[in-house]
């Protein structure tokens, strides 16, 4: 099976919690698949060469540029896009809410990608300094905001995420002496 090279391959993966099976042209990028086949238009095509970060999505929790990632490679993996950040009732995630409150948005083209990288950072539970955040967000270009409000937003989201963890099982695990 794997020693042949069919033009289309059937792959199964999860997008924003939903199981999807599709026949995929092996020549398509993941951004093609997400935008054109699945209608997930939060995945922006900016440079299409992995420089700008507008097309970033989370694969198994890790942010990558979906423009330089073949669609067939997501077989068996879990993909998250900005459509999947808010809960079923439409409540914004901690990161989304922080972007709104810190006015980390102008034209909005870079925002979906930044939200996902920020989500990876915030959900890691680590606290990054401002300098570390600059390094971690360096794969995203924003031509409007000058980045300051974006950094403010991610710091705000980090603080809120840490606060939300207090009292959780992970919190007690971390603070209980052994």
């Amino acid at each position: 099976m794997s020693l042949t090279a069919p033009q289309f391959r059937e792959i199964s993966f999860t997008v924003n919690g939903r199981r999807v099976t599709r026949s995929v042209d092996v020549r398509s990028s993941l951004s093609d698949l997400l935008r054109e086949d699945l209608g997930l238009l939060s995945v922006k095509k900016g440079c299409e060469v992995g420089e700008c970060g507008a097309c970033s999505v989370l694969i198994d929790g890790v942010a990558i540029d979906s423009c330089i990632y073949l669609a067939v490679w997501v077989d068996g993996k879990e993909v998250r896009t900005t459509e999947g950040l808010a809960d079923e009732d439409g409540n914004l995630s901690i990161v989304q809410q922080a972007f709104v409150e810190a006015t980390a948005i102008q034209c909005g083209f870079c925002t979906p990608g930044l939200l996902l990288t920020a989500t990876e950072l915030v959900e890691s539970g680590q606290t990054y300094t401002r300098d570390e955040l600059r390094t971690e967000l360096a794969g995203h270009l924003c031509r409007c905001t000058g980045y300051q409000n974006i950094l403010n937003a991610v710091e705000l989201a980090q603080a809120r995420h840490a606060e939300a963890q207090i009292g959780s099982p992970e919190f007690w695990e971390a603070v209980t002496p052994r």
Partner: protein
Amino acid sequence: MFDLKALYIPDTVEEALTLLAEHPDAHIMAGGSDTLVKLRDGKLGGLEWVSLHGLDELRRITLDDDDTIRIGPLASFTQVARSAIVRGRLPSLAEAVLTIGGPQVRKIGTIGGNLCNGVPSADSASTCFAWDAEIEVSTADGVRTLPIADFYLSAGKVDLRPGELVTGILVRRAAYQGWHGAYHKYAMRNAMDIATVNCSTTVRLSADRSTVEDARIAFGVAAPTPIRAPHGEAALRGRPVSQAAVDAAAKAAIADTRARDSWRAAKAFREHMLAEIARRCLTQSIVRAGGRLTEKSPA
């Protein structure tokens, strides 16, 4: 759509080697962060490709029984940088790969792809030269291992014949135990940029840390391939630890370079920067090795 004539997706190294033997003209795609950009640019069109994406066995970073560090060629730059084995034994390699691209690119780009591309600016390459890495190349019939300096043939060309696949990047214990290193990339921007020049050095000091027993100096973008600088190394080997000796070695190393003029930088500027970053890397390597740099050689 990328212009791929065919895409083979093996699940195991064995399958990959069988495919490469059957399709000697097929090109190899690892993380895709360089090849897909070239394809998007209209290059490399209409070819057959073997995607290594499914070969998780080549993503591991392990220690062999004889303490040889074995880096799977499909390990992403992020994986290399986070590996306890790399951070503990080859910390300058972790530093070097963290200067590549941006975070998203580092999660898909692979160290094997970086080396097999054969470009002189590859951030991981000069550091692999500085740690005397060896490249393990497999075919359906067997395995050969060669020093990284022999792996690089000429600009953009590495010693990878049809049917062959890099299956390991090895650093022997003798090449890293007691050695300390540093990396410096000179580029226009702090992220998403290619090195104008880069340098990676390692040193081994005597037990009392007063003498440089051995040193390795490697450069990127100083010649058509990454190179070692034997003149610079000879100028430091066996010398008492001193800033003057470091400065002289950094200067001597330029004799081994063949930098050229390009739109990125002039030859004279490259040579100036190579000497300066070699000086900084050697200084940092010696400090990390516990050496104290005096202004003059002790009498």
